[in-house]
């Protein structure tokens, strides 16, 4: 669809002021919006003057609120008001949030009185709540209405309303009494009251609910238009599925980013210094952890000096621990975000399952490590790359055993840590990373050197002692 963009840019440059409105109307506003980042200030001004407020509002819906706020300041006040009137309420609210209180007041003064009231109420909902992404654009009917009258309300309002998949049945005080699916309405025959065929077991969300939960609710139940109510079940607004999809898209990116211990802003940052600074805290923490690990290794200096070959497999043990820990962490965090572990029974079940998984994989990978490291040692010994002072069997056996043990422990931690953090009201996706890394490194090392010390150094002597 890139050719569209080229066409639009050409129209902007060449079309006469009289025809530009008509010509651009045949393109999707989203494509016209994309051109706003390409054209120069002069052309931009030209568009702002020649296009009418309806088209501008449609285009602005596809631009970032910050950009729209800058554009709005360039048009004259009455037109800015008309544009805000024509925009969807949730988009208009996002734009208004960009301004200082004073400018916002001035802009709101130019809008239609009804719109002003709606926008003023929407602006106060905090970020990340259902209220902040809802719109007051919906069709409401009364339960005493006849099918015919309900149909009339629909016909009258459908042009100006974004979502018409369902109509909301409200009483005089805006209490939500039920909904009527559009499908049901068009099939119903007069005379029949709305009350007789409305659906009363309505899934709603509260205005302060977290947006991610709301988006997931809409996804799970396939809801195109979700009613948002206050504590006493009065309808305050609706959320449309396109907004829910955008939220879900953003949140999944965010989860991904957090899992790699980068911040969401990082992926859009253009500034090198800022990117670097964003990632620095986590890396500094790792450095501190690394120093603890160094101190632990120094405790085993004697073992290392005696059996240098152990060092070759240090990365193996640590990588394995880190990786299994991360695997079970990822599974657990995903389960938490899908609200699977809400009672202690299911949490316990999950931890036990992860320990079993760890044990199974520990057995498999431990056995495999024993075999491959054994073969590896024999080959490098034969090739003369290293000279073994201890039997390869003992060395590879201690590698296999410690990999197996370490795997069980790190898998268990991968499940327990995020569950505990979530119980303590920390975001498990953010905080688990450092914990898991530290624990798997520390435990991996301890197990490795202790097991190796026992099997390679202590056991032969012990056996010899018994024999002697």
């Amino acid at each position, binding site marked *: 669809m890139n050719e569209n963009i080229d066409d639009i840019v050409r129209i902007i440059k060449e079309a006469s002021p009289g025809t530009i409105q008509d010509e651009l109307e045949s393109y999707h506003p989203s494509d016209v919006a994309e051109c706003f980042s390409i054209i120069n200030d002069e052309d931009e001004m030209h568009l702002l003057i020649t296009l009418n407020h309806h088209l501008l509002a449609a285009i602005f819906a596809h631009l970032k609120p910050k950009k729209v706020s800058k554009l709005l300041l360039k048009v004259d006040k009455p037109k800015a008001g008309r544009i805000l009137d024509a925009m969807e309420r949730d988009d208009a609210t996002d734009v208004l949030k960009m301004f200082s209180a004073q400018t916002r007041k001035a802009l709101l003064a130019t809008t239609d009185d009804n719109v002003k009231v709606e926008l003023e109420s929407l602006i106060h909902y905090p970020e990340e709540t259902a209220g902040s992404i809802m719109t007051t654009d919906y069709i409401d009917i009364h339960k005493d209405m006849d099918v015919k009258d309900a149909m009339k309300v629909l016909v009258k309002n459908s042009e100006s309303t974004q979502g018409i998949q369902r109509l909301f049945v409200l009483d005089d005080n805006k209490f939500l009494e039920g909904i009527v699916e559009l499908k049901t309405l068009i099939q119903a025959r007069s005379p029949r009251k709305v009350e007789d065929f409305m659906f009363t077991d309505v899934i709603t969300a509260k205005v302060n609910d977290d947006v991610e939960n709301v988006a997931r609710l809409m996804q799970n139940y396939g809801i195109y238009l979700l009613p948002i109510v206050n504590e006493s079940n009065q309808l305050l607004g609706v959320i449309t599925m396109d907004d829910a999809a955008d939220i879900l898209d953003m949140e999944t990116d965010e989860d991904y980013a957090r899992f*790699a211990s980068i911040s969401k802003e990082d992926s859009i940052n253009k500034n090198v210094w800022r990117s670097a600074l964003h990632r620095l805290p986590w890396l500094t923490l790792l450095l501190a952890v690394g120093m603890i690990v160094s101190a632990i290794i120094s405790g085993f200096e004697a073992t290392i000096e005696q059996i240098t070959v152990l060092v070759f497999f240090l990365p193996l043990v640590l990588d394995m621990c880190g990786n299994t820990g991360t695997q079970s962490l*990822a*599974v657990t965090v995903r389960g938490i975000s899908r609200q699977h572990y809400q009672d202690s029974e299911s949490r316990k079940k999950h931890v036990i399952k992860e320990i079993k998984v760890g044990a199974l994989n520990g057995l498999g990978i431990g056995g495999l490590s024993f075999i491959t490291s054994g073969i590896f040692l024999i080959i490098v010994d034969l090739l003369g790359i290293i000279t073994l002072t201890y039997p390869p069997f003992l060395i590879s056996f201690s590698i296999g055993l410690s990999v197996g043990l370490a795997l069980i422990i790190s898998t268990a931690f991968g499940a327990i840590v995020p569950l505990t953090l979530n119980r303590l009201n920390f975001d498990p996706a953010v905080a688990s990373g450092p914990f898991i890394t530290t624990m798997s490194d520390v435990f991996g090392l301890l197990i490795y050197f202790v097991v190796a010390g026992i099997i390679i150094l202590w056991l032969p002597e012990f056996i010899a002692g018994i024999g002697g």
Partner: protein
Amino acid sequence: MPKLTLIKRNKPKEIVAITRHEKRQKISQSKLNRYHPYDISEALLVMSETERQKVYSWLNKEKLAKVFEHISEERAADFILELDKSLAADVLTLMEIDDAVDILQHLKFDDSTEFFVLLDETKRNQIRKLSKYKHLTAGSEMNSDFIKLNPGMDVKDAMKLLVSQANTIEMIETLFVTDENDVLVGVVDLKDLIVAKHPKKIENIMDSNFYAVNVLDGIQEVVKDIQKYDTLAMPVLNEDKKIEGIITMYDAMDIIEETAHDDYAKLAGLPAEDDVYDSAKTSAKKRLPWLVLLLFMNMIVSTVLASYEETIAAIAVLVLFQPLILGMAGNIGTQSLAVTILRISRETLRTKVNVIKHITSEFLVGVINGVILGVLAFLTSWILLNILPLGQIDSTITPFRVAGVVGLSVVSSLSVSALLGSLIPVILNKLRVDPAVASGPFITTINDVTALMVYFTLASVLLLTLL
């Protein structure tokens, strides 16, 4: 910080309780039918087979089909075998076609043929058509649940048609206008149909300037178009511009979630489908391949280390800081990798200039953080070497010099890892390999090897050769 707020009612749990404890069948049946198919699907996942059998018998076919649409294809393939053969065929017929195909493709060949012959002719043809399309194309995710009009129809007749089909069709907000050859010539927004007054022909209210995708288009791009143009139902056309199916915004939402999970899973070295409801054995089996791969890749790391045996034997104290350097390099590499993959998936890396800019900036981030952390690492390791009760350190190998090597290694390995972390996914993407596979074992091993080589080479040169 977004907390996971508890939803007050746990509906799947209520359903399980009803199946377990409610003795009067009539009551449980009517209770159960009041729940949303999604809740029932969640409940099925935690039930035993006998409990599931009860649920199957209490629900009507239509509802059961809806329930099956909500279950992941793997599990749905297991459950469908628990149904009576003819009921199973009915359920498959009533399900959205793309979901039915997914289930059939997950069944063993014998089972799927058995169901297949039980389906009616039209359904069989539709399924055949859909199975042709490769995974992750628009063709494989579309469904045929939509209303077709023709341009010459009067609005009144169109409305009648709509009313008669509204029960069986999920998506009625967009209607599709086709000519006698089934070529899509326009779309009608339900709003326009509702306000249109008889007599008026459909061609006068339809929009012939619509967006459509091709059956072979990648599903991710289709989802992006749906989001960009706020399309409730995107028509999917074949080469002859005939309409083959639609993809709804609701489908798009599921696909967003699935693909995001794929990427996320790959970053963690997990198979995408590791399911909360899998048994420990199945989970273990699914995670094992990555670990085995990692194990073998790690033998390369061991080989690299073995080749530095002399250096290690001479300066055992170097081993102390080996995990530190590997850990940090691995992490900065993963960070770059994740940023790059996110950018690729958002298509901000389309032009050559952008790619070069991105890689340069990632490298610079690595250098900046490398220098800062290198200095810190130098200082802390120097302090550590002085306070730890270490054995004989050769008089020429002073703590200061060892700390210097550690610091320098951090600087250079962090810079290199950041560079690799951004370069590798870009190259894979160019080669049309999913860049997300670079995560996990591959990037870990590559980072380990480069960091070790940097560390021990620097150590041999600076501590041994120079003396």
